[in-house]
């Protein structure tokens, strides 16, 4: 994909949409309008946008607990996403999945996932299907630093490597597996180092720099489409919110949060776009206002939608 002005602005707009979606979801959850668990992506926008903005129709994505940003990057409909968070029948999953399970197989989006590390073999399977059908598709799996300790990582990277599957494994290292700092949950600094155990390339990039993520993704996607097999990309980033909404985050110091907020992925990208003369302050305000309207409409749609009929309880167990 060529990064012209329009493409750059679209990436910026998507990052802002994710941020606005998540902050709104946080408020809605605090107000008691959204049931269940909500895991937010604020602070990690550069990862989803850096990778997904260059995928083609027909490619696949396996996501995580923190999946809203991936879905929005994939072109997910904000209205259907909010409706799903509310448990309404108009939601992506007819209200049967909720925040942790938003999916749309027609977008190649194999779901956010309630099980940490479960997306890894699913993505390997989708990559297998692309290779089997020789359709040129690739599959991207997002997972966290916590998931990088699961057995699924080992089995999936190993099998993807021996079969040269067109898979891209993107570790969103936000430094915490729930409350456990990476320093305490593994004895390595760079999760990308694990790639060497599978004989595949591993790169570690600044996950708050969307262009750095984009470039690493570009190389990995090219490699995958050329039949050269998988890549492990580690994006070092940070989640602004707790693991889930309501998490008091007693396990991390305020200075750490402040340090990362000074390196905000959206502000960094904005600065760069302004320097490149791609974005003016005026345009920025216009985009932000447009995004706020999109989110507001999405929330209204969800609020005004109906809950599923109780008869829906028994449908869709089997085909």
């Amino acid at each position, binding site marked *: 994909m060529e990064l012209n002005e329009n493409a750059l602005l679209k990436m910026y707009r998507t990052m802002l949409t994710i941020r606005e979606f998540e902050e709104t979801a946080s408020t809605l959850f605090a107000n008691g309008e959204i049931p269940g668990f909500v895991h937010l992506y604020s602070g990690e926008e550069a990862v989803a946008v850096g990778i997904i903005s260059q995928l083609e129709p027909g490619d696949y994505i396996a996501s995580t607990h923190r999946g809203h940003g991936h879905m929005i990057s994939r072109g997910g409909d904000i209205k259907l996403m909010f409706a799903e968070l509310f448990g309404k029948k108009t939601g992506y*999953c007819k209200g049967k999945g909720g925040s942790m399970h938003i999916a749309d197989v027609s977008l190649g989006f194999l779901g956010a*996932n309630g099980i940490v590390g479960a997306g890894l073999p699913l993505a390997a399977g*989708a990559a297998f299907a692309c290779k089997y059908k020789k359709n040129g598709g690739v599959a991207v799996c997002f997972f966290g630093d916590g998931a990088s300790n699961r057995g699924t990582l080992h089995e999936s990277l190993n099998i993807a490597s021996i079969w040269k599957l067109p898979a891209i494994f993107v570790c969103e290292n936000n430094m915490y597996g729930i409350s456990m700092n990476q320093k305490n949950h593994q004895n390595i600094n760079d999760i990308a180092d694990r790639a060497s155990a599978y004989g595949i390339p591993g790169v570690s990039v600044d996950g708050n720099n969307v262009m750095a993520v984009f470039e690493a993704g570009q190389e990995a996607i090219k490699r995958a489409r050329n039949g050269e097999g998988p890549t492990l990309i580690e994006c070092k980033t940070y989640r602004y919110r707790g693991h889930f909404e309501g998490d008091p985050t007693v396990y991390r110091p305020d200075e750490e949060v402040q340090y990362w907020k000074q390196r905000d992925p959206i502000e960094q990208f904005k600065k760069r776009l302004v320097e490149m003369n791609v974005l003016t302050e005026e345009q920025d305000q216009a985009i932000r206002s447009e995004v706020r309207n999109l989110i507001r409409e999405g929330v209204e749609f969800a609020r005004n939608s109906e809950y599923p009929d109780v008869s829906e309880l028994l449908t869709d167990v089997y*085909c």
Partner: protein
Amino acid sequence: MTFSAAINAALKEELMRDENVFIFGEDVGIFGGCFGVTAGLYQEFGPERVIDTPISETAIIGVAVGAAAAGLRPVPEIMFMDFMGVCMDEIFNQATKMRYMFGGKAKIPMTIRTAFGAGFGAAAQHSQSIEAWFTHIPGLKVVMPSTPADAKGLLVSAIRDDNPVLFLEHKGLYAVEGEVPEGSFTIPLGKADIKREGNHVTIVATAMMVHRALQAAEELAAEGIEAEVVDPRTLQPLDKNAILKSVEKTGRLVIVQEAVKFSSFASEVAAIVSEEGFDLLDAPIKRVTAPFVPVPFSPPLEQAYIPSVASIVQAVKELG
């Protein structure tokens, strides 16, 4: 044709019929499968359709789920049912939940084949019958054939089904011979088969136990007791009407399975008949099962573990 050859024939026909079908697992390729069930398929269809995997059950089933969601029709093999603990998440949280959780917008057409059952001195980690773990999960079909013809027809249906199916093959049945109709045919999932008709007692039995129940029925017939042997064939969904109808005719029910009794498939059948057919019963329901222990190694212990023809005969006689 043997049970093993019937499964091989079903796999071969489906590989030929639909290019989205592929089989993969540990040693299924050049080796032909640990029990020889996939013999010759690698040679005929090549390494792109009959694929050897590393020893990685999690990846085998996880890859199958992802590939099925992406439009293929995988037929993974887990060498022994005992190994399914390693891939349970992929089965009970991923494969079986995606359709429901995604609001009906996903199809996961995959068939997991695996071998189960005792009788070979393989001890407690290679001999289990743990079908009840799987019949408890909404979204998964569980098939357990007892004859070569059933194995072939049911496996073809399983592969063509758009849902995840667990296809259970008793190791002791692989060498069993039986008539198999010529050509391609299917047997619908969820339909029981009356393996022997009778008026005095209904024996519901699965897999290897169908054969023991039939032998028991012959012995009972010599004493004037005519047993009807019902083989559910598909444990989930279960053809409960066939069972209730038989109990209506006989008034007595004995359920025979190789698995242990507590929280088992036999318990479920007993509960269904108590709940929905209490008035049909002239005697209490009996369950003939393995004792509540792991499968032992030593041959006399293992033989004592597996329900015998004599124990089935005795259970029927105790009903009076």
